[in-house]
């Protein structure tokens, strides 16, 4: 994406956490001892109105809602972390908020290596497996030999 965007890295990890499979994230997180923190916003389940565009390119319209859970925490050093995850898993939202905060501190390399990288790899793998199955159903047209010589 845009290399000049100072928020690009944070945006990327928050987006990945939002879409992550809850069980996989919980598994990877399991090895970590959560740092000292206070909860700024207890996990809250809500709805987000998803919008589309008429004709894919025109005026916006409301397509329907999706469930989202959010939470915010503050580490003892004052770093604030926000978690937004799809669905209704409160533990996942808290974990996402903690990871968001830790990624802004010195432990970032370890969190990146032990959680975000394997999480991203697993999600990429799922996505590419689907793409590979779709590709196998691509039609190869061929023209029959014509009779008119």
């Amino acid at each position: 994406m845009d290399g000049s965007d100072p928020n690009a890295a944070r945006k990327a990890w928050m987006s990945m956490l939002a879409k992550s499979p809850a069980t996989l994230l919980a598994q990877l997180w399991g090895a970590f001892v959560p740092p000292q923190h206070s909860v700024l916003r207890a996990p809250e389940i809500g709805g987000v109105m998803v919008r589309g565009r008429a004709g894919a390119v025109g005026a916006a319209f409301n397509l329907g809602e999706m469930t989202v859970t959010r939470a915010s925490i503050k580490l003892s050093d004052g770093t604030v972390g926000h978690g937004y995850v799809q669905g209704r898993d409160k533990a996942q939202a808290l974990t996402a908020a903690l990871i968001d905060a830790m990624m802004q501190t010195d432990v970032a390399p370890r969190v990146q290596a032990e959680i975000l990288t394997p999480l991203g790899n697993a999600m990429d793998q799922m996505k590419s497996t689907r793409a590979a199955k779709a590709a196998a159903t691509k039609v190869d047209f061929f023209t029959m030999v014509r009779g008119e010589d």
Partner: protein
Amino acid sequence: MYVAVKGGERAIDNAHAWLAEERRGDSAVAELSVPQIREQLALAVNRVMAEGSLYDPDLAALAIKQSRGDLIEAIFLIRAYRTTLPRLGASLPVETEQMSCDRRVSATFKDAPGGQILGPTFDYTHRLLDFKLAADGEVPQAAQTTGREEQTPHIMSFLDREDLIQVEGEGADVPDDLTRAPMELPASRALRLQALTRGDEGFILGMAYSTQRGHARNHAFVAELRIGAVPVEMDIPELGFAIEIGEVTLTECETVNQFKGSKTEPPQFTRGYGLVFGMTERKAISMALVDRALRWAELGEDNVGAPAQDEEFVLYHCDNIQATGFLEHIKLPHYVDFQSELELIRKLRREATALQQVAE
């Protein structure tokens, strides 16, 4: 005189207990789990999410279990749950160009860039019952080849380059929302699309079919039908930038429609649009046809009086929860209303009999 009556609590409690028992069915048969419904009845789950207007496969699966497979009842449960959720915000409009396509076909261009991807479709099956499914059968593995990594362009963009397709206009920054304010007519296209995407599949299908049979015929071709996952992005106020908050599977249908031109528009192709939660292909195609029929006024077409052109008729009758609520309420006690009707008929009968006797 009407005397207030009570009673029925015990009967209701017992009815609910029996309902729970019937829902479970024969206890010698293994109970269905919610994940089983989510994974194995995915198209029912998709329909409940689309018409319940809430994307959450686990909740939709739970609703299907609770409703014993009555999908309109399940949609009702989801709509009721939806109203309890605080609204955290609205997403940026999803970019369907970014879709990871499980399926993508065009009925208008054979050699469309990106190709024709059939996906896990029922098309080309023989519609013969497969008795292997009744036994515990092994599932064959889906084949894989190198997947596409780049985005798949919309077919419509090729027609757009030649200026042969009607241009989609800009709309309000914040589109009308029928979950927030009562629908008013004439409705904006945004409002129409919202009503159609959550409308009853059977109703929208019937309306779309009526246009094909000649009621406001608009000669639709499916320029493109695509199904796949799309990221959902939202601005997060506390961050000051947007992040992806999830990913939804959508079905999008774009039709091109023959158009000879009108008082206001040159000869060109016009377009209908369908976008629906989940893998909901029949609904998305239907939505596109009905959307196109409802656009007669802006395109300067004649209103030929067809039902599918009648915004009031379509939009006020497509919602199966409104419809079933009003329809089913007539089975509930109307003892007082009926008592007055009975009195009236008896009175009229007495008067008619008296008149007859006088005449004789």
